[in-house]
C-alpha cells in the first residue's frame, strides 16, 4: 500500500515538474524578480539624481544667502530682470520654476508676497523645501522680536524621545515590533501564496483526472484517499522544488547582477532606513549609529532557527488543511470555471489572516486579536508566524499558545481531511452537474 502511495507521489511530482508552464515559470520568475529589483534600484537612483532647478528673482533685502542647493533643488539667481522677463527666461531655459520675492520692508511682508511660478502643479517636496527656508527665517525673526537668541532657541528645541525598556532591563526599541512583525509577515505571506498557488495545482490535477475520465481506472487500483494524499504530497514537493530553485537562482542572479552592473544596493537600504534618522540633527549622528547597531542586533537576535522550523511546521499543516479542501472542490466540479463559488470562501480566511496580521499584530503582537487569530487553525499558520519573531516564552509568544495552535492545526487537519476525503470520494465519480453546498453536505453522509 505504501509503495502505491509512493508511485502516486512520484507521478504527480513528475507530471507537475515536467509541465511546460511550470518550467517556464520556474525559470522566468527569478529573472523577473531580479529584473524588478534592478529596475526599482535604477528608478530610485534616477529619482535621486534628478535635481530640479528653480530660478530665484529676489528683489528684497532678505533671504540673500538662504537658497543653497540641496539634494532636490538647485537655485539660479536672476538679477536685474523684470518679473515677466524672469518668467520668460525660466521657461526658455526649461527650468522647473521661478521663485519671485518682491521687495517689502519686513521679512513677514516679503514672505507673504513671495510667489512660486511653475508650469504645472509643483511637486510637494519642492514646495516643502522652499517653505522650510521661509519658515526658518520667519522663526528667527519672530524669536528676535521676543528677544530670544538663536542659540537659546536651539537649546530649547532639542527633539525628545522617551527611553524604552522591557521589564527584564533590555533596552527596547521603537519600531522593532513593526520590523519583527514585518519579517514574520513575510513568512506568513509566503505561506499564503504557497497555499493558494499549490492548492490550485492540486485542484486542477483533480479536475484533470475527472475530465480525462481516468479517475475510475485509478481508484479501482488504489483507495481514493491514497490518491488524494499522493496528489497533495506530490504537488507540495513540486512546489518546494520550485521554491528552492527560485531562492537559489535568485540569489545567484542577484550576486551576478551586483558584480556586473555594480547596482548600489546599499543605497537602497540606506534610503529606507534614512527616513527616521533624517529628522535628527547632525550632532546626533553618533547616537544614530549606535541605534542602528541596536536595530541590527535586534534583527540578528530574532530567533531565525525557530522561525524557519515554525515556517516549515505551519506551512506543512496549513497546506495540508487547505489543499485537502482544494482537492474536495476539484472533485466536486467538472471544470475550473465552476470552482469560483467554492474558492472564495477558502481564500477569505487567508486574506483575513494577512490583513489582521498587518493591522493588529504590527501594533500589538500579543493582544487579544493577535492571540485569537494565531490560535484559530485557518488563520494561525500566517498570524502565528507574524508573532514568532519576538521569540517563544518570556517577552514572546507564550509556550502554551504555540503548542495549542499546533495542536489545533493537527486536530483540524484530521477533521478536514476526513471530510474532504468523503466529498472527494463521491465527487470524483459524479459527472455533469454542478453541485450545491447542500449536495456537498449530503455527500458527507454517503
Amino acid at each position, binding site marked *: 500500500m505504501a509503495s502505491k502511495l509512493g508511485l*502516486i507521489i512520484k507521478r504527480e511530482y513528475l507530471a507537475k515538474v515536467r509541465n511546460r508552464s511550470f518550467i517556464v515559470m520556474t525559470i522566468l520568475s527569478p529573472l523577473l524578480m531580479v529584473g524588478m529589483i534592478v529596475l526599482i534600484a535604477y528608478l530610485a537612483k534616477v529619482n535621486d539624481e534628478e535635481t530640479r532647478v528653480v530660478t530665484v528673482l529676489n528683489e528684497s533685502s532678505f533671504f540673500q544667502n538662504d537658497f543653497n542647493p540641496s539634494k532636490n533643488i538647485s537655485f539660479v539667481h536672476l538679477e536685474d530682470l523684470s518679473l515677466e522677463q524672469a518668467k520668460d527666461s525660466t521657461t526658455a531655459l526649461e527650468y522647473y520654476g521661478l521663485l519671485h520675492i518682491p521687495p517689502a520692508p519686513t521679512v513677514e511682508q516679503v514672505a507673504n508676497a513671495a510667489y512660486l511660478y511653475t508650469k504645472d502643479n509643483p511637486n510637494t517636496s519642492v514646495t516643502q523645501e522652499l517653505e522650510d527656508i521661509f519658515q526658518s527665517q520667519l522663526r528667527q525673526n519672530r524669536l528676535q522680536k521676543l528677544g530670544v537668541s538663536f542659540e537659546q532657541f536651539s537649546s530649547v528645541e532639542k527633539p525628545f524621545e522617551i527611553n524604552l525598556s522591557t521589564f527584564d532591563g533590555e533596552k527596547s526599541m521603537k519600531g522593532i515590533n513593526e520590523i519583527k512583525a514585518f519579517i514574520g509577515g513575510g513568512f506568513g505571506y509566503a505561506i499564503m501564496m504557497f497555499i493558494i498557488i499549490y492548492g490550485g495545482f492540486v485542484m486542477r490535477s483533480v479536475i*484533470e483526472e475527472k475530465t*480525462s475520465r*481516468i479517475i*475510475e*481506472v485509478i481508484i*479501482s*487500483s488504489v483507495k481514493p484517499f491514497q490518491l488524494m494524499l499522493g496528489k497533495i504530497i506530490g504537488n507540495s514537493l513540486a512546489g518546494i522544488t520550485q521554491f528552492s530553485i527560485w531562492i537559489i537562482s535568485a540569489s545567484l542572479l542577484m550576486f551576478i547582477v551586483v558584480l556586473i552592473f555594480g547596482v548600489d544596493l546599499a543605497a537602497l537600504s540606506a534610503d529606507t532606513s534614512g527616513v527616521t534618522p533624517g529628522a535628527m540633527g547632525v550632532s546626533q549622528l553618533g547616537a544614530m549609529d549606535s541605534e542602528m547597531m541596536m536595530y541590527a542586533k535586534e534583527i540578528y537576535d530574532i530567533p531565525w532557527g525557530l522561525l524557519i522550523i515554525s515556517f516549515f511546521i505551519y506551512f506543512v499543516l496549513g497546506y495540508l488543511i487547505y489543499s485537502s479542501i482544494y482537492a474536495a472542490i476539484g472533485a466536486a466540479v467538472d471544470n475550473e470555471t465552476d470552482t469560483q463559488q467554492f474558492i472564495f470562501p477558502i481564500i477569505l480566511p487567508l486574506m483575513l489572516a494577512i490583513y489582521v496580521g498587518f493591522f493588529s499584530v504590527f501594533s500589538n503582537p500579543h493582544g487579544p486579536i493577535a492571540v485569537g487569530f494565531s490560535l484559530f487553525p485557518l488563520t494561525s499558520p500566517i498570524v502565528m508566524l507574524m508573532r514568532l519573531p519576538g521569540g517563544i516564552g518570556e517577552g514572546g509568544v507564550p509556550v502554551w499558545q504555540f503548542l495549542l495552535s499546533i495542536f489545533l492545526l493537527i486536530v483540524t487537519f484530521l477533521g478536514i481531511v476526513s471530510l474532504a476525503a468523503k466529498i472527494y470520494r463521491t465527487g470524483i465519480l459524479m459527472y455533469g452537474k454542478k453541485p450545491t453546498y447542500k449536495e456537498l453536505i449530503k455527500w458527507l453522509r454517503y
Partner: protein
Amino acid sequence: MDHILVAENVTKTYGDYTALSNISLQIPKNCIYGLLGPNGAGKTSFIRIINQITHQDSGEILLNGEPLAPKHIASIGYLPEERGLYKSMKVGEQALYLAQLKGLSKSEAKTRLTYWFDRLNIGDWWDKKIQELSKGMAQKIQFIVTVLHEPKLLIFDEPFSGFDPINANIIKDEILQLKENGTSIIFSTHRMESVEELCEHIALIHKSEKILDGKLSDIKKAYKNNIFNVGLYVEKDVSAMMRSLKEKFNILSSEVDSDENQLNFKVQLPSHQTGDILMELSKGANINRFEETIPSANDIFIQTVNNKDNGQ
C-alpha cells in the same frame, strides 16, 4: 458449479436513492457473464462494489469463496464505461504506472506491455502522448492496461463503445481468447447483439433489482412461446388457403403474395406440438420454411423490463 463471484443480498443506497436492493448473483468460473440492464439500473453501482470503489450497505460478496478484501484488487481487472487516460503523459509511461498500481513490478510490467503492444500492433506508440492518439487508439491501450496483470476476474463495462467495427472485432476475439485461457469475465452492456455473441450467462438488473438471471440458452427456452414462422408455396388459391388456416390456428400475422403464390405467416401453437399443423399444411401446399422463433436477448430484455414496469 464453481463460482468466481457470489453476491448475497447486496444493498446499496445513496441518501434516499436505492442503487441496489437485495441483489444476489452467482457468477460461474471461466465464462462470460452478461450484466444487462437499462441505463441507471444499478449495473455500475454493482461493478463499483466489486472493485471496492464503494462498499455495499449490507449483504456479502465472495470472490473465489473469500469475502472481498483489498488484496483482491490485484486479481480483478476493470475497464469502466467512463474511461480515459492522462492526456499529457506518454503512452508507455502511463501504462507502466497503471500496471504498477495493480501490483506488477516495473520490469514485469514492461515485458508484458511489450508483448501486448506487439500483439495489437501498436509497438511504435510507446513514446506518443495520449492527446496525439485517436479515441479508438486510446481504447486499445485501456484494454491492454485492464488485462495486463492477468486478473482472474475481468469486468468490461461497455467495452466496444468507441471502437470501429474492425477494432471491435479484434477486441472481441481477445476477450474470447482470455476466456479460453481460463479468465472469468463480467460483461456489462446494453448492446444486445454482443450479448448473443459472447455471453453464456446473463443477469438482468432493472430499477436496482435483479429481475432475471441464468444460462442464456435456458432463459431463451423459457421465453419460447411456440411461435413458428411458416413459408408456403400454394399452387391454387392462396387467399382461400389463408382463410382456412385462420379458422383452425392462431395466426398472429400473415402476408400473401398472390403473384408468386407465396404465403408467409406467423403462428402460435397451443403447445409444442407441430404434427397437426404440418399435416394440414402438407395437404395443399409445399412448405419452404417452418421454423420456431427463438426470442433474441433483445426481445427478452424489452419484454422483461416492460412486464416489470407494468407490474406483471
